[in-house]
């Protein structure tokens, strides 16, 4: 006899549960956690390096590096003297809640204010998997073109922040930043947008200030729950 079994379960529920666990751990430690996502080569690691150089004296930063293979990025970041863990996904195109959970043992969260997670370079898959982060930031370089919001809508929908990188290349590429921003905002009107060059440093002060205020807010929240 054939029976129809009703289910109605979220396919990603297992990941959502793990992400929630991570979120609780981060909240308890008073950490602000940001998930950096982009296509390969948009400048995630360069943005991390710049950010660490600018903020390390005032903010305790930890980094989780996600890559399919190699520890090249973690070595780059490790030279800065901050806590860093390398995750190798072994072929998988994105980080998930479970990978983050397993990497936390290697970090002393109580000694951190800001945790930056560098996702695997990919404009599609990472957007589907929550990690327990406070915010998702996507980095898009002008060299990739102003049409990307049209082609990878989920990424722009899921992110709260858009960092447009490599603006020093604008004279050499056919990219209309106005159009890029307009298309991104059509997908997500709440996007916080920064226009920067990690190479020259242009525009990065706004990004640093924004991060400072996010970390401050999180600390204030933690102090508020303690009193």
């Amino acid at each position: 006899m054939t029976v129809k079994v009703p289910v109605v379960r979220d396919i990603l529920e297992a990941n959502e549960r793990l992400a929630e666990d991570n979120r609780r751990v981060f909240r308890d430690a008073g950490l602000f956690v940001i998930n950096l996502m982009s296509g390969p080569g948009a400048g995630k690691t360069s943005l991390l390096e710049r950010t660490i150089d600018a903020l390390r004296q005032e903010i305790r930063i930890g980094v989780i590096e996600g890559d399919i293979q190699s520890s090249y990025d973690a070595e780059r970041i490790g030279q800065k003297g901050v806590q860093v863990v390398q995750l190798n996904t072994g072929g998988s195109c994105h980080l998930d809640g479970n990978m983050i959970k397993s990497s936390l043992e290697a970090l002393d969260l109580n000694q951190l204010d800001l945790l930056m997670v560098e996702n695997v370079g990919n404009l599609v898959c990472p957007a589907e998997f929550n990690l327990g982060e406070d915010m998702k930031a996507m980095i898009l370089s002008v060299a990739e073109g102003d049409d990307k919001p049209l082609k990878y809508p989920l990424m722009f929908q899921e992110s709260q922040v858009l960092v447009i990188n490599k603006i020093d290349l604008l004279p050499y590429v056919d990219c209309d930043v106005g159009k890029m921003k307009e298309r991104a905002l059509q997908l997500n009107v709440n996007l916080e947008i920064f226009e920067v060059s990690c190479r020259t440093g242009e525009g990065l002060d706004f990004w640093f200030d924004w991060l400072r205020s996010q970390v401050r807010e999180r600390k204030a929240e933690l102090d508020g729950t303690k009193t």
Partner: protein
Amino acid sequence: MHEMSIAQSVLDIVLQESQNHKVNRVLSVAVKVGELSAVETESLRFCFDFLTKGTLAEGARLEIERVQVTCRCQECSSNFTVQELIFSCPACKSPKVEMLSGRELSVESFEAE
């Protein structure tokens, strides 16, 4: 691509529920996939067929229902289907909209014997 992880999660859910309902064989599985989800349906089918081999769900049909992206305007309260990924109200042009559907990724039901 991440369709393999999605297919594995679909199968995990179906096998769990099969055990609860004491069925011997799964014939078909109905899933909902929102148009905004970054899931390619043919690739999902391929991964599902591959993963189900040797399980209760071997040979089961994966029935995929795509769900349109719809929103409600927070200014004028009208509901609309999002066309060409423009998330603003066609009636009053407000960009303040709340998504009602389009991000689905769920196992709805399955048929078994």
